[in-house]
């Protein structure tokens, strides 16, 4: 099994799943430095359902990518699920992502030549599981998102809402500590979007799944417990959501 804890400090058992301190992300574009995130201090509790909001270019997706370990901060510290992500190598980050994070994309990004079942099974190849164990996990995940009857369908044979359900199943099949979603309803119609949000709320309430979700839509954000708003790379609001 993977061991990504060998070289970094531990905060396992901590009630906080994300702790970032003075987090910064800069890009260099045409010789000019673009400050996408500036001095972000944020702590998110384990089991929370958090919505990241803000206008386009505010840095919310970049912040989500930093939480997922698919991008690196320019400065500051970032502890996620017990790991200081700034100290992990590229390979260690990949191993950490395989076990600790599930990521849901706005455009689903399923592998088109694999069936729904195979798409969900894909991340499990990185875990020491028998074929039977993989089958059990995939079936459980497909059941959880209510798409078991479509397991043999290819993505092109599914609706957008169904594709997103498969993508969510793929994200939770490894039982990650943290589920990150980048505008998960952004490409769906109103009915499908409501259905996906209901599913995420269910995962949070029934499984205690920690969820951080980027969204533009205020009505989508009402499903979260906490709202973090960014503007021009800075954290401008951090409030509890009243249901």
């Amino acid at each position, binding site marked *: *099994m*993977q061991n990504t804890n060998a070289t970094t400090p531990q905060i396992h058992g901590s009630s906080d799943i994300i702790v970032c301190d003075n987090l910064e992300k800069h890009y260099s574009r045409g010789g000019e430095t673009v400050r996408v995130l500036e001095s972000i201090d944020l702590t998110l509790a384990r089991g929370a359902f958090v919505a990241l909001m803000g206008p386009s270019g505010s840095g919310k997706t970049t912040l989500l*990518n930093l939480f*997922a370990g*698919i*991008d690196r901060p320019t400065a500051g510290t970032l502890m996620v699920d017990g790991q200081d992500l700034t100290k992990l190598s*590229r*390979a260690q980050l*990949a*191993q*950490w*992502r*395989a*076990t600790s994070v599930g*990521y849901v*994309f706005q455009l689903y*990004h399923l*592998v*088109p*030549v*694999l069936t729904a079942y*195979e798409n969900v*099974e*894909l*991340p499990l*190849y*990185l*875990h*020491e*599981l028998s074929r039977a164990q993989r089958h059990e996990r995939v079936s459980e995940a497909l059941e959880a998102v209510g798409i078991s009857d479509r397991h043999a369908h290819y993505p092109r044979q599914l609706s957008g809402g169904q594709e997103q359900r498969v993508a969510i199943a*793929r994200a939770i099949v490894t039982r990650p500590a943290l589920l990150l979603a980048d505008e998960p309803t952004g490409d769906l119609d109103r009915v499908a979007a409501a259905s996906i949000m209901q599913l995420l709320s269910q995962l949070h309430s029934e499984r205690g799944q920690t969820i951080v979700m980027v969204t533009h839509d205020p009505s989508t954000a009402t499903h979260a417990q906490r709202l973090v708003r960014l503007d021009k790379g800075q954290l401008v609001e951090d409030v509890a959501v009243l249901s």
Partner: protein
Amino acid sequence: MSRAQSIMGMATLALRGMKRRPTRSALVLAGVAVAVFLFCTVDAMRSGVERATQKSAGETALIVYRQNRFCPFTSQLPQSYESAIAKIPGVASVTPVKIVVSNCRASLDVVTFRGVPPQEFAVTHSGSASAQDMQSWLSRGDSALIGRELAQRRRLKAGDRFTAAGVDAFVAGIIESDLPQDQSSAFVHLSFLQEQAKRGGTGGVVTQFDVRVSDPAQMDSVAQAIDERFAKDQSPTTTRAETAHVARAATDVIVLVGFAQALGIAALVAVFALVANAIVLSMRSREKEISVLQTLGFRGVHLATLVLLEALLLGGVGGMIGAGASYAAVSLARTAMTMEGVSIAIAPSFAIALIGVAIAIGLSVLAGIVPAIIAARQTIVAGFRS
């Protein structure tokens, strides 16, 4: 983490990857298959030439031919030389042979009649035909024992009659032999062939003598002694090892096969370019998918493995199709290149097919290395921005 499992996941993806763009995959597979077919077929020819012309340490067969003659029709030697050759020290046996061919030039369908003294032939080739076939051949003056490849090529069996080069013969049976010379030949009684050929009178003229020496180390000295013995005679001789005799007769073919082999190798280089192009195009259109895999936790080594597996599949499947088709085509054709009365069999070879597949796989994997490195080094964010 289980490396075997992750590779299994990549293998599933690679296999399905071929379905992603079926037309492109089919075209690449066809290209690889054609190249490997060409390579294997040419190599079967090269292998046949090599078998027929490469001198071996244990070689004991000499061919005595008329000096400065290069065609069975013009090589005429008195049969009476047989006793003189037999007396030369080191000679184990001498067989006078009359050869009549249906075509003197290089051809893929030549029938070579070899007129041999029946009783001598029955001794030297005992076991190469069934006792019943040999007895049938001995008892009938117009009968022929024919090589396996000639029988297959002309669809002949025992009891048939066939005509070639003006010679009409009865098929007494099929002989089995590893020698390419025998496989395309029809062995008939010497007197019968001399009568049929009507060249140089009915008695006493043969095309060549097949000589066996008792010690392979004496090949050169015996050949020299034979040529010296007839140097002042009306029909001087040139004596060579059988493989050298074939090599001399097949000089043009050897050059042609060498050229064809260069073309076969060029075709394999095309495999490299073809697979490299297919992989690069495939990877370029899948940068986002690679980023998704990285997000799921797949590392650079997994992605490189995926690319190399795809290349391996293209080369392996295409190579197997090409090598299999070549093997089948050569097997069905059962062809022999014959020139000046000597034959070079083009035989199917499992080893050549395996080499063809291995080279296709090797070149394909080589073609996948740079795209694999690029995929392994791709950053997730850049992939999503592409």
